[in-house]
């Protein structure tokens, strides 16, 4: 609200009436937040307890004597040196590369007219409709034939193939919404398609790119099924694979298991916290008459 000159009859100092709908909304939000926070509290508390304390105390009781050794123990036993490194390599290459390829494709679909554009887009979108479980066996055969089992490209390429279609879908509809005058003005200013893409479209699309980056980072970081099939060598395992082995091997040590889970989840949470500030909408406001 903009401040306006107060009239002598202004009653703004009076308490406004309570809005019960708003109260109910807040109550619901708090409840939902509690439901979502509960598992995190459980995991963090348990990761700091000894096995005996886990058995003796309630799941949500704070650890009396925090046992930080769980973390060092889990790091060693879960071979995090290897799995963490592998996960980082795969995610750090796949996520930006995928986003870059998708946004370039999306720009072409949205702004460059060419024959067969609609058909090609449909074919790409078809990729979002196939559940990857159906593809697991053929995928294994394909990667095997390419002699890429147990290699980084062997898992990064399929990740790209499954990640790009939905990103193209989202980005091209976003790009379509960018006023055509913006790219026309840039064309008159002397910009090539690639310059328009890089200098105008990417900056304007930061919110949606940040959202896609977070989603893609989390799903790549946590991906299990494809990694399980394509990475057989333990030295190539990613974090989720390491975690699964953990549970079988040390099924009784809940403290260490949860410490491992915390360490797995942490990078995704950090990435989320870094990029969520770009979620602010309205980056395009002011470009054209709004």
């Amino acid at each position, binding site marked *: 609200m903009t401040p306006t000159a107060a009239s002598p009859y202004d009653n703004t100092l009076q308490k406004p009436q309570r809005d019960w709908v708003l109260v109910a909304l807040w109550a619901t939000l708090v409840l939902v937040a509690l439901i979502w926070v509960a598992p995190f509290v459980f995991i963090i508390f348990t990761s700091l307890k000894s096995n005996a304390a886990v058995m003796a105390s309630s799941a949500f009781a704070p650890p009396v004597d925090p046992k930080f050794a769980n973390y060092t123990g889990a790091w060693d036993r879960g071979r995090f040196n290897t799995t963490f490194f592998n996960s980082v390599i795969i995610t750090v290459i796949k996520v930006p590369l995928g986003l870059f390829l998708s946004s370039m494709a999306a720009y072409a679909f949205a702004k460059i007219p060419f024959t067969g554009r609609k058909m090609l887009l449909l074919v790409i979108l078809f990729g979002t409709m196939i559940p990857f479980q159906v593809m697991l066996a053929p995928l294994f055969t394909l990667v095997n034939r390419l002699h890429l089992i147990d290699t980084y490209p062997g898992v990064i390429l399929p990740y790209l193939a499954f990640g790009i279609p939905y990103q193209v879908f989202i980005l091209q509809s976003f790009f379509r919404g960018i*006023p055509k*005058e*913006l790219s*026309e*003005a*840039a*064309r*008159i*200013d*002397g*910009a090539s398609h690639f*310059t328009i893409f890089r*200098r*105008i479209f990417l*900056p*304007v699309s930061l919110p949606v790119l940040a959202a896609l980056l977070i989603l893609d980072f989390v799903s790549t970081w946590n991906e299990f099924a494809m990694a399980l099939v394509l990475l057989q060598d333990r030295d190539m395992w990613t974090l989720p694979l390491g975690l699964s082995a953990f549970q079988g091997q040390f099924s009784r040590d809940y403290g260490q298991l949860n410490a491992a889970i915390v360490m797995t989840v942490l990078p995704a949470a950090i990435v989320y916290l870094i990029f969520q500030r770009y979620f602010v909408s*309205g*980056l*395009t*406001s*002011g*470009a*054209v*008459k709004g």
Partner: protein
Amino acid sequence: MSTVQIRDVRKSYGAHPVLHGVDIDIADGEFVILVGPSGCGKSTLLRMVAGLETITGGTISIDGRVVNGVEPKDRDIAMVFQNYALYPQMTVAQNMGFALELAGAGKDEIKRKVDHAAGILGLETLLDRKPAQLSGGQRQRVAMGRAIVRDPKVFLFDEPLSNLDAKLRVKMRAEIKALHHRLKTTIVYVTHDQIEAMTMADKIVVMQGGHIEQIGTPLDLYDHPKNVFVAGFLGSPAMNFLDGVIVGEDGAFLELNGAGRVPLPAGLRCAAGQSVIAGIRPEEIGIADTGGIPAEVLVVEPTGSETHLAVRLGSQEITVVLRSRIALVPGEQVHLSLGTAPLHVFDKETKERLPSFS
């Protein structure tokens, strides 16, 4: 500064033609306004000059060079869009310098030119702002600044004032005109607002349905409209049209349908019995104390400086603009003096102005 020749330019989208062969000559430094109702093809024509639309037939030349296949950036033009099209993530200075930056100009040169343009438009204090932090009028000015910085041969304006409120529009109108006076660059300007066209243009091109109806100076079009469309399009309130028949020796009088008889201008090429449309500007009609044609007042609109009347004349309704304040109420009878008003006489069939002997 430059000339623009548009020769028999056509445009169709598939089988659907939007421009049917258009010819316009624009002299160096001229301010030309393309005006017409929505869908008349004026914006399409401007975009074809800019190179944003392909040309189906004919040629467009800038400074004698045919530019049909030339990329927009190589045409040496600058365009101001209706919705400004400022780059939202760049500051005002970056927006204005973008074209120079892409052309590979040095930092100092960019800064000098941007500062110069900002000085012309009064944008010096806004150079570090983002477009979102500017008002509508300021954004409009930045869009013009972006055009000025490039020092193009031709400025193209596509309805640049449509998104501004009425007061600001009047102000920007004067600013654009002053800018043209100062820079003396050729301007092609598209609008649907006839007031903008009348007040700013050196030359107006009135378009309708993909055709040019008439080209001329504002006052020439106002005083000698070639047909009923141009006559009705220019001027506010619009010209009154009355159906009538030529009567008398040598076609000396016009019998208005059930509303009396008025003398015709001398030397008109017409025949007795011919059905015509008579056009009279609202401000040319007066109220007579005695005599004149009786009419009934329907609506009275005092604007302060003028009084607008809607009156019924016979079976037809017309508008009268009086320069004085007058106490009238709806339902009252008045006598209109049409005798001295310059009549525009158009053929009823062709809607074209009747030629005169002179």
